[in-house]
């Protein structure tokens, strides 16, 4: 009986240890998974803002009359809103936003839903309009 009892105590300690390890691994996984999703969303939003800002800056430098059509990737799994205001492109999602600076304040943005936008330089005003 004495010997059996000793084995049970070892078993209990082992189980507790395994449970602790499992708990720690689960905590680590959950934390990193949440972080990974946040990084992914931030990265996609930044990519979209950067793409639009880059195009606006290029159209601005290229001069009056230049225009281009830009396809904005759909960001999978979450809603976002784009805003071009003065010399900033902002992408909002959930309670976050990311922004990119522009080289001109003279911008005009028409809100829309489509994934394709026209970016035009009209007398040095950069007009962003959904196709």
């Amino acid at each position: 009986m004495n010997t059996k009892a000793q084995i049970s105590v070892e078993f209990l300690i082992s189980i507790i240890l395994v449970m602790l390890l499992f708990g720690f691994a689960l905590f680590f996984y959950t934390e990193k998974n949440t972080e990974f999703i946040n990084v992914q969303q931030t990265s996609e939003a930044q990519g979209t803002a950067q793409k639009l800002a880059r195009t606006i800056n290029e159209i601005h430098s290229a001069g009056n009359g230049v225009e281009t059509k830009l396809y904005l990737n759909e960001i999978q799994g979450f809603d976002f809103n784009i805003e071009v205001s003065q010399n900033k492109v902002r992408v909002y999602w959930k309670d976050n936003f990311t922004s990119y600076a522009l080289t001109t304040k003279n911008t005009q943005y028409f809100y829309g839903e489509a994934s394709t936008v026209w970016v035009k330089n009209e007398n040095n005003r950069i007009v962003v309009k959904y196709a």
Partner: protein
Amino acid sequence: MRENGQIFTTDLMIASAIFISILLMGIVYWNTTTNQISFHEEANERDEAIRYAANSLVSTQGDPSNWEYLIEISEINSIGLVSQKNVLDQQKIQKLIDFNITNYEEIKELLGITKYNLQILFTDFNGMVYYEFGLAPGIENEVSVTRRVALLEGKEILIKVKAWK
């Protein structure tokens, strides 16, 4: 039975130690990689910001095109230093230099470099400085530099735009 139990526990201890070591290595590797990615992304973003600022300076007249005669900086939509592409206008350069003391932050904003410190140097190819805008970076700073060649009074000069955090 007692010896068996001890062997079982020792095995478990070794296995746990190995598992924890691997997990810790994973955490350290993850954090290192994340930091490296952030560092490179920040550098890329800074490089890109000064590239567009430099393009705006040497490719556009600014908006309005006579911005150098305006007194209020709030009336300026964008800064450009040329009268025609790559031909610098000395009055525009002088106005930019004048703004250095009073409106450094606003100029940075107009050039899309709000997040960084900025220096713009107008030099010849031997490094002699004709005009200078902004602050000088310290040797400890991670500095992004972009260069453009333009004409000033028929002479080729180098425009260096530097940004750092």
